[in-house]
């Protein structure tokens, strides 16, 4: 199952004000595309538009999986980590994973195992409000290991991560790309992944 994204002269913005010049690009299986641009250039707006949350000002974009137009199997990790402070990391992750059709079979053991690999074994069963920003970010990123999505949109995945976690994140992104997933991400800190393409958002 391979997914593709074609962007044609897309312009995003808020309240009729365009944030960047019309953008044309494609994202195919195995690509790692980095969205570059300084603060406020519209990186988050672009990602949220491609995820289908915002309507673009003009231009179009088309998702297709094996030729059929569909946005199934899309993974989106943005600034807020979709973690309810009352629930534990395990409960939060199983709730989010159940939303994807192809990963609803993940059981608690796999979740705890992945959290342990990310150094979160001690806090796996504590309410998320007790976690630090870095721990919350790693819990949110655990979805990269657990959900087998074909396309990933990552909004500054490396935010609040220490050096070791950034290395682990970069390695996992590389593995997923080699495995045929398509990744579109924005970041401020450099991540040593081989970007197949860099989209520069300029006015």
């Amino acid at each position, binding site marked *: 199952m391979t997914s593709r994204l074609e962007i044609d002269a897309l312009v995003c913005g*808020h*309240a*009729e*004000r365009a944030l960047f010049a019309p953008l044309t690009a494609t994202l195919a299986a195995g690509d790692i595309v980095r969205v570059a641009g300084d603060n406020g250039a519209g990186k988050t707006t672009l990602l949220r538009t491609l995820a289908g949350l915002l*309507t673009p000002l003009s231009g179009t974009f088309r998702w297709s999986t094996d030729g059929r137009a569909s946005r199934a199997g899309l993974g989106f990790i943005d600034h807020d980590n979709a973690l309810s402070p009352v629930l534990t990391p395990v409960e939060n992750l199983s709730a989010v994973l159940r939303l994807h059709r192809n990963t609803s079979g993940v059981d608690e053991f796999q979740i705890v195992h992945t959290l342990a690999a990310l150094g979160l074994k001690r806090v796996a069963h504590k309410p998320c409000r007790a976690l630090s920003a870095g721990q919350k970010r790693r819990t949110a990123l655990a979805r990269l290991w657990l959900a087998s999505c074909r396309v990933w949109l990552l909004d500054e995945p490396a935010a609040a991560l220490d050096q070791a976690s950034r290395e682990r994140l970069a390695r996992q992104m590389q593995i997923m790309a080699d495995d045929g997933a398509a990744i579109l991400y924005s970041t401020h800190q450099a991540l040593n992944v081989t970007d197949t393409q860099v989209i520069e958002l300029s006015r």
Partner: protein
Amino acid sequence: MTGTGFKRWFHRFGSLPYFYDVSARWAVWLAVPAVVLIGYALVAGLFVVPPDYQQGDVFRIIYIHVPSAWLSLFGYTAMAVAGVVALVWRLKIAEIFIVAAAPVGASFTFLALVTGAIWGEPTWGTYWVWDARLTSELILLFLYLGVIALHQAIESPRTAARACALLSIVGVINVPIIHYSVVWWTTLHQGSTVSLTGGSKMDADMLWPLLAGALGFTFLFGWLTLWGMRVQLLWRERRSRWVMKRITHG
């Protein structure tokens, strides 16, 4: 109109600069019939039509009350239809229509309520009677105020208009349900009160001014809403080039 003809017209009609220019001319075609019809309705209603044998001259308020009551319903239904168009075809003109029509509809609903109350006083002895129509009219006013308040509360104009579109659709589904439940409630409550227009069958010369008045009010509603749309359009597109072009040399 062939398929492509309609599509081209639909997109041109949908394009905002085209609408802004053309609406000035359309306004005339709405204003003239409005003035003529309302003029005829008022003149006939106040002078020509003989007083009602039961209520005497106070019944002449009908020539304002019924047209505005009709307009309150017509306006809200029009907003709901525009809501469907705005949400399904994402047509900005339809969004702008809803936002412009809401205050006009609300003021005529208010007018229907006030004239109903004024008319009720001599007829029933109190200004407010929980009559089925008046109560439904009051709730309809709240529905209008809800749309207006929602539009003012939401920051971005696009989201505000689309939220109002959805609220109008939900509202219009509820209007008949609300009316039915109010009628059930009033009949249960105090038996069927004499309806405002009285049981007497309206004979022809009383009826014509009424129909003319209602039609005239509808044209007036169209004219007022059209102007409201032009203002909304300028506000939402104030930064775009076509507005600058038309304004600086206009």
